[in-house]
């Protein structure tokens, strides 16, 4: 009896604590978004999206930075997706399970937590200097691809692990090879999960500024890039650059650019969720 009362009080306390924690998060986010919207919405316009950068806040736009972000997004995806998924499949399906692979697994998980600026330094040395790619979109994309590879590998492995053995059994029992089983059954069944991981990783990549600054992304690019070897800027760097200016106009521009970046990120996450749900429904019925 006494115990029951105690448990009920604990229950209550815990739910209050949880409620407070959640509220703090939501309030902070709301304040942030309202502030940004307040500053940014008035400047956000078609002109803002299609104008080149300028020294005059009212004339400046985010066209080059947005195009840079699009380039970076696509190239990073093209590089990281096949590499990450293939590594995940290999480690999960073919890799020998021993102490070394256990160590590798832990290391990959740890790599996902390495500060992004470290990846920037790695990219600077390898891609910019050794491979002589210069301060190009390609060098930036390769660097970001390295950054998100661990996330893609880990989520691919998780997705593959969740595929029931009965599905593999069915395929093997009909005379399928291991590769056929992976290609025709395991990958389709886990693709929803893999895709979610890839898109979430990519939405992290397009929010990164630090590693791209290190590999030499520019704050001011007069023209939108037209090839992977061009110089570039991206939205986070543009935002960073504007925020450090004294004029009030640039602060507003930065807020507007943040809104654009947020919309892109939310859109990506939305697509990820939509695709996952669609895929799972298709796989269930």
């Amino acid at each position, binding site marked *: 009896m006494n115990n029951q009362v105690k448990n009920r009080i604990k229950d209550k306390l815990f739910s209050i604590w949880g409620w407070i924690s959640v509220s703090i998060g939501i309030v902070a986010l709301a304040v942030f978004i309202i502030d940004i919207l307040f500053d940014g919405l008035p400047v956000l316009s078609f002109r803002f999206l299609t104008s080149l950068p300028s020294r005059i806040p009212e004339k400046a736009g985010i066209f080059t930075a947005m195009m840079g972000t699009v380039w970076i997004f696509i190239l990073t995806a093209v590089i990281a997706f096949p590499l990450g998924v293939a590594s995940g499949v290999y480690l999960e399906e073919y890799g020998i399970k021993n102490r070394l692979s256990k160590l590798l697994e832990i290391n990959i998980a740890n790599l996902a937590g390495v500060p992004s600026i470290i990846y920037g330094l790695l990219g600077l040395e390898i891609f910019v200097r050794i491979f002589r790619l210069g301060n190009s979109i390609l060098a930036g994309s390769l660097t970001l691809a390295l950054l998100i590879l661990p996330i893609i590998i880990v989520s691919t492995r998780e997705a593959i692990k969740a595929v*029931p053995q*009965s*599905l593999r*059994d*069915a*395929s*093997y*029992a*009909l*005379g*399928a*090879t291991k590769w*056929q089983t992976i290609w*025709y*059954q395991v990958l*389709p*069944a886990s693709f929803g999960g893999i895709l979610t991981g890839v898109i979430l990783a990519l939405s992290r990549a397009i929010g990164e500024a630090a590693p791209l600054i290190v590999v030499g992304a520019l704050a001011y690019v007069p023209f939108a890039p037209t090839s992977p070897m061009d110089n570039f800027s991206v939205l986070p760097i543009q935002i960073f650059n504007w925020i450090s200016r004294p004029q009030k106009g640039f602060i507003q521009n930065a807020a507007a650019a943040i809104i654009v970046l947020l919309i892109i990120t939310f859109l990506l996450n939305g697509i990820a969720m939509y695709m996952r749900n669609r895929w799972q429904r*298709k*796989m*269930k*019925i």
Partner: protein
Amino acid sequence: MISAEKEILPILNQQELYTVEPTHLHVASSDIVETIDVNVFYGDFHALKDVNLAIKKNSVTALIGPSGCGKTTFLRLLNRMNDYIPSHMVRGKVLINGVDIYRDKIEIEQLRKEVGMVFQKPNPFPKSIFENVAYGLRIQGIKDKHLIHERVINAIQQVGLWNEVKDNLRKNALALSGGQQQRVCIARTLAVEPDIILMDEPTSALDPISTSRIEELILQLKQKYTIIIVTHNMQQASRISDTTAFFYLGELIEVGKTTDIFTNPRNERTERYITGRFG
């Protein structure tokens, strides 16, 4: 013993001994499956002990015995489905159509086309009914649309599913009932045209009506295929099988004509099991 055999083999190849052999060869030819002193281990655990069992072509063999006695292990031995378990080890001979599937050079994929398998829980692919049945053909690289179509429809007709699904072959197989799903799984196996079909408690997840349909189906399939079925249902074993094999703690205790096993078992443990006095 294995090394002794190796020494004998070259002698067997000599002409004069060949003339002595035919009677033995003849006997072996009607046995589509034969295991000779088979032992199976999972690491240290001895799961099958000196199992000698011969199975005739176009017969239905029921494997019965209490839970954990090695029925599934025996079944999966025959299409090498346990190969992926690292601790799984086989000693002895498993002959299928006279070929030692663990020692002769064989393609494991080819073996599984000859020895099909139906599982306890229906496990259709999350694809259309048509694609489920066509899968085994597609992975063989068969591209001929007419051939695939013909074989798929033929297989669906064989399992008696045609009237139920003919209008929506493109429907996802997971949307079917459990019994229909299991028949899709059987059709999928038939489409590959195996010689032997292994069934591991194929009706244990099904309702009585679906169960009796599958039992009827097994009796029909006997004309063309050799069927080995694991079941916990004694009535089922006596209804559909010609031969019954009773396993207990990894040993094959008794094997014989089903009518004999059920009316007149020789071993006391068999009798106790089939009369339900231990389980």
